[in-house]
């Protein structure tokens, strides 16, 4: 008999327990081969069978060695509940089951002496969402008829770039009574109100990145939807930088400046301007924390694109050398505007925070008119890798913060000057059109979504602790990994097709939302079209309460 050791880990301590039915198992080994986390292993069990032959009890025992599949008891190779084993098992003999009695948050810290890291989203309060209490309640009737969603022309586009107030437009009446432009104005691009962003080429597998690039090119060139993809920090393959598809790409620079060396070197060879530049100051899912790309994901091509050795790549939490908003406007914005000769809009992405409105106010008053967009990222966004404590406990929800920024602009008569883009968990229910639409009515010009795009590609993670292993480099479906065998699980053409189809469906849904409120262009700030069934939310967002 073995001694009981209280400190030993059992599978009952882990988040997920693998249920295995030896009687159905054919011992093909597929599950063990497929589990990228090595959370199950082949093992031989010693079995004892007691039997009796003859008419009277005459117990004898027989020992046998039986090969079985067993869950690994480890805080390193623990089961993530991804369900890949279940997917590959021909006999339904194995699969993960959520363990409500898990002690993982305690034992992991006790044994590792390190903070827990993971990918995915915030896993607390996953079900309660403000947007779910909001509906589009002003349906046109009689005198203000609904439009025909399939017949009318709808302008489903949003601005990216600094918009001048009317009195600053350099327009004068010419001899023929027509307005003539006397000076250049800041560049503004009208793009689809949903940006795919901003997941870096290090965080994602090359196939995933390629799939997104294919989807975006197809949406633009075949479907007429000017969808843009934001690169995330970490550079862009040189071939893409030199190609004409660069125009669909928003290049991101963040505090680590990863990949910018190559971008700058490629500039003379670019045949198109990029769609825009996004300066990332912070990320909603882990505000105050910089990027984190663990060494296991820094594959050779990532080292080449980023110009780094194989090592943990940490972006500092802030841009070194920027101490004030005024300084950032002058240094970063001006230099990036100048780099592309003021032809490319430059925007900023910040984490939603109690101070976001002040930041926005400062930017909206910038006298240079060069801040071309304010990207506000809420707590519910996803991340490739972060400390769980940041993911779960820091950050600020996006909905009220976006509304605050919009209303701050309204109170100064500056709405629309700096387009507002909001993100952070939008569409996590799968209904991105409806959520984007509500955000637009609350004042966003457009929204950005990343995690949902991974879900389109086949990500099995969710907010209830399933998978969320994006940081490990072992993504079981080949999305957030650089392991060749895993990456090959992803079929880029099919992923691209899924993304394209999702956008086409969403576009149709936008029309279905615009038509009943009688609008043919996006109802930015039209909060009178919204109603809330929760009084506190209605009051906070200044929309109508209904019951």
């Amino acid at each position, binding site marked *: 008999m073995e001694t009981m050791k209280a400190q030993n880990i059992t599978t009952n301590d882990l988040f997920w327990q693998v249920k295995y039915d030896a009687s159905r198992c054919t011992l093909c080994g597929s599950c063990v081969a497929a589990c990228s986390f090595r959370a199950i292993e082949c093992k031989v069990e010693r079995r004892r069978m007691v039997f009796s032959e003859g008419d009277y009890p005459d117990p004898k025992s027989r020992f046998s060695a039986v090969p079985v599949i067993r869950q690994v008891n480890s805080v390193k190779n623990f089961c993530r509940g991804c369900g890949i084993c279940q997917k590959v098992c021909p006999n339904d003999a194995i699969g993960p089951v959520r363990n409500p009695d898990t002690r993982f948050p305690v034992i992991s810290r006790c044994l590792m002496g390190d903070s827990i890291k993971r990918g995915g989203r915030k896993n607390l309060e996953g079900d309660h969402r403000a947007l779910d209490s909001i509906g589009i309640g002003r349906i*046109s009737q009689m*005198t*203000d*008829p609904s*439009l025909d969603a399939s017949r*009318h*022309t709808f*302008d489903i*586009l949003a*601005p990216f770039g600094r*918009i*001048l*107030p*009317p*009195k600053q*437009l350099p*327009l004068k*009446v010419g001899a023929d*009574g*027509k*307005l*003539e*432009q006397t000076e250049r*104005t800041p560049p*503004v691009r*009208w793009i689809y109100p949903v940006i795919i962003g901003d997941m870096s080429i290090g965080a994602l597998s090359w196939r995933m990145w390629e799939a997104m690039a294919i989807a975006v090119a197809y949406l633009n060139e075949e479907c007429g939807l000017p969808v843009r993809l934001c690169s995330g920090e970490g550079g862009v393959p040189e071939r893409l930088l030199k190609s004409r598809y660069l125009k669909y790409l928003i290049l991101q620079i963040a505090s680590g400046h990863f990949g910018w060396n190559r971008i700058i070197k490629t500039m003379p060879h670019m045949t198109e301007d990029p769609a825009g530049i996004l300066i990332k100051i912070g990320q909603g899912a882990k505000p105050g924390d910089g990027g984190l790309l663990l060494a296991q994901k820094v594959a050779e091509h990532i080292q080449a694109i980023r110009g780094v050795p194989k090592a943990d790549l940490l972006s500092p939490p802030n841009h070194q050398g920027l101490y004030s908003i005024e300084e950032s406007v002058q240094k970063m914005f001006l230099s990036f505007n100048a780099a592309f000769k003021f032809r490319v809009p430059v925007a900023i992405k910040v984490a939603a925070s109690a101070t976001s409105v002040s930041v926005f106010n400062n930017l909206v008053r910038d006298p240079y008119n060069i801040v071309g967009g304010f990207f506000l990222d809420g707590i519910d966004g996803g991340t490739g890798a972060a400390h769980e404590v940041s993911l779960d406990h820091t950050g600020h929800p996006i909905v009220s913060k976006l509304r605050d920024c919009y209303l701050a602009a*309204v109170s*100064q*008569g500056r*709405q*629309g000057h700096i387009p507002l883009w909001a993100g952070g968990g939008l569409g996590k229910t799968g209904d991105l059109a409806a959520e984007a639409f509500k955000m637009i009515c609350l004042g966003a010009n457009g929204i950005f979504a990343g995690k949902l795009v991974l879900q389109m590609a086949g990500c099995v993670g969710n907010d209830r602790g399933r998978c969320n292993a994006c940081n490990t480099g072992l993504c079981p479906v080949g999305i957030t990994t650089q392991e060749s065998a895993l990456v090959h699980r992803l079929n880029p053409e099919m992923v691209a097709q899924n993304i394209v189809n999702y956008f086409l469906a969403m576009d149709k849904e936008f029309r279905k939302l615009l038509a009943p*409120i*009688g*609008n*043919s*262009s996006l*109802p*930015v*700030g*039209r*909060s*009178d079209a919204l109603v809330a069934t929760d009084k506190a939310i209605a009051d906070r967002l200044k929309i109508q309460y209904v019951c």
Partner: protein
Amino acid sequence: MCRIGAIKSKNYFHPSRIFLLMQSMQKGHDNSGFAMVMQDLGGIFKGFKNYPTLSLACTDEGLKIAEDLLHAAGFQRLLHYEPKTNPQPGLDINTMPNYVFETFMYPREYQKASAKEKGEILVNMRLTLRKALEEGDNGYVYSFWPDVLTLKEIGNPQDIGTYFNLWEPDKNFTARIITAQCRQNTNYDIVRYAAHPFFLQGYTVLANGENTFYLKNVEFQRKLHRGYIGFESDSQCFLYTLHYVHHELEWPLPYYKHVITPLPFEEISRRDDKDQLLAIRQSLAHLEINGPNTIIGVLPDGTLFTCCDAKKLRPVVVGRTDDYVVLASEVCGVNEVLPDRKWEKDIYPNEREIVSVDNNLEIQRWKQ
């Protein structure tokens, strides 16, 4: 729903014509009110074209407050006119004690001021009066501008006409341009200020329809000009946008259409003037209307115009003879006023044009 109409003529005519025009369209509105603006005045006002006239409906105290304020500001009264009323039992009208039209001389220090400066003090004065009268619910100031009269009242338009003796032609009370609308704006409260035509610094606008971007318009307009106030009706936004585009930005009238019903992006991208149109669309995105409506407007120089929403969900028709141009929501109105016109020449403006009428009654159709 509202019905709107306008008559412009080479000759002075009496408001009875506009009552006729509106009466024939009465099935289309709810008979809950009547409002009109008379411009380019004849009759007893003819000799005072350069002096501002105050249009006021008020209590006795309101009249005193207003006159004291005007006096204190240095305005001297030149003319006082009160329409003779005809109270009868059974009339459906919600009356005020006094209806006053008074013409004033500018304060001495402004007599040589530029038209622009004069325009500014007139707005300031009207806003001051409005505020002072609002405080004790003492009355309504509709306009204070040279050569312009405004009359608004709650009730049945036919009875309102009877009350003010406006069914009977009177050569002392005439104008060359009259715009009118029946029905109070009942989408919101019944307030006298909510009835269009609305007037600001020589600009008049009345509309039939809805402004689904009302909230966006209001939130933006509040910060644009001190005179953009009230917002008792969603149609007021149309006036303020016209004033902003034409008076503040000094852009020609066609750009009003580009602001309120911008071309789709795809069409803009094919135009020679795409840079300007895009700059306008993005900079003034919050002044877009995006709802079903027809607008009739008058510019300070007397140009009368009409245009519709981009989806043409509201009708308007323009009929004319040598001496008259009539704009109305329904053709029955035009038939009533101009029965002998060549109806084949009537114009039904489309969703992408502005039809304007100059002071020689020449009609221009301008395509967006």
